[in-house]
């Protein structure tokens, strides 16, 4: 005969203590700062959407303070920011992006319906932060195409960049195959050189193997 059977209440008391403990645990569990809102599939699909990007000529309205729901964030470091930045931009250097207060700030801006436009020195610098913020659910974050470099080159006439493709990425600017094809007249000598090259590579391997 078990001791519990002598006092059935004891089991119930232990059980309710256990449940209370679980509930306390869940309530006090720290919420992670960010969590993925998009799956891998969704993240890949989103990359093809044009609403991820902010075009250089759209800056005119921001600089003229006509677009009051758009906030520019400069993610370069403070020193470079001090040397020159887009008028009206705030500095939020990349190294501080993970700070809790900045993430909370972004959340606040999202709730208030602001659009946040990030820019770095070039598009590449802002690409990673854009992708991450999108993946954790900041659907109001965009990236300035061309970055600060492109803005700086065209700041006197941003409207004219509508017809320019200098800031666009993701396509071939040359005919690769033609450019890299063996040059005329060098065809035969090229074939001879090929063999020499192959030998050289073998040598490198032998050396590497011997250490």
């Amino acid at each position, binding site marked *: 005969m078990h001791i519990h059977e002598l006092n059935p209440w004891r089991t119930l008391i232990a059980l309710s203590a256990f449940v209370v403990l679980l509930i306390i645990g869940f309530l006090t569990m720290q919420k992670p700062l960010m969590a*993925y809102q998009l799956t891998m599939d969704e993240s890949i699909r989103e990359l093809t959407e044009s609403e991820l990007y902010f075009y250089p000529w759209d800056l005119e309205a921001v600089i003229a303070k006509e677009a009051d729901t758009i906030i520019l964030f400069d993610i370069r470091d403070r020193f470079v920011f001090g040397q020159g930045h887009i008028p009206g931009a705030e500095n939020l250097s990349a190294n501080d992006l993970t700070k809790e207060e900045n993430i909370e700030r972004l959340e606040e801006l999202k709730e208030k319906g602001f659009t946040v436009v990030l820019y770095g020195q070039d598009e590449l610098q802002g*690409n990673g932060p854009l992708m991450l913020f999108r993946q954790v659910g900041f659907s109001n974050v965009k990236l300035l195409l061309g970055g600060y470099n492109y803005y700086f080159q065209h700041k006197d006439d941003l409207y004219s960049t509508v017809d320019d493709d200098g800031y666009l990425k993701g396509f071939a*600017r040359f005919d690769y195959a033609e450019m890299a*094809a063996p040059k005329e007249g060098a065809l035969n000598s090229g074939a001879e050189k090929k063999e020499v090259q192959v030998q050289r590579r073998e040598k490198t*391997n032998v050396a590497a193997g*011997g250490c």
Partner: protein
Amino acid sequence: MNRNYIFLTLLMLVLAVGTVFLTMDDEPNQVDPEILLQEIIQPTRYVSTDQVAKMIIQGDPSLMLIDVRSEDDFQGYSLPHSINIPLDSLLTADNLSYFGIPGTKVVFVSDDDIRADQMWVLTKRLGYKGTYVMRGGLNCWMQTIIEPKQPSDDASYADMETYSFRKGAQIYFTGAEEETSDDSKVEVQVQKREKTNVALGGC
């Protein structure tokens, strides 16, 4: 039998069934967003076209070039020994098996660096290490390796050195191009792995 035990058993069963639903919507093996963001803001993932050219010429066995452009573009031109994984077909098990091999350096290549960088972020989220981005992509490759510009006469010694390396690389790549452009992917792969083994054994 005591009623309490029946009650407890039922409770445990309910909880056990509950755990099944808990794990179902979790995508496995993903890096915490905060850690991912910290890695994203480091510029250590970029390699220059010169570095890639050097590795190809020296036959670096740990180098694995992954071209993230579309299949058509890849057929038109690709770097020697590169493998084609278009960005939108990254998530197939076949393609994912190229990543996370210890000791390999995976370098992503695209027209410029944005698509390659996007691929980098995605693979980083999946937790793969040893991935890099070729800065400037193929457009920069054409300008620096295939048609290098001669520096002015008063350029620094380092610039002259770079130029003479690029001239050599130009001959290597424009000469050897035809031979390697349409290699089947699998063959290249096998060669590389063997080399890695030889190198490891030698040391």
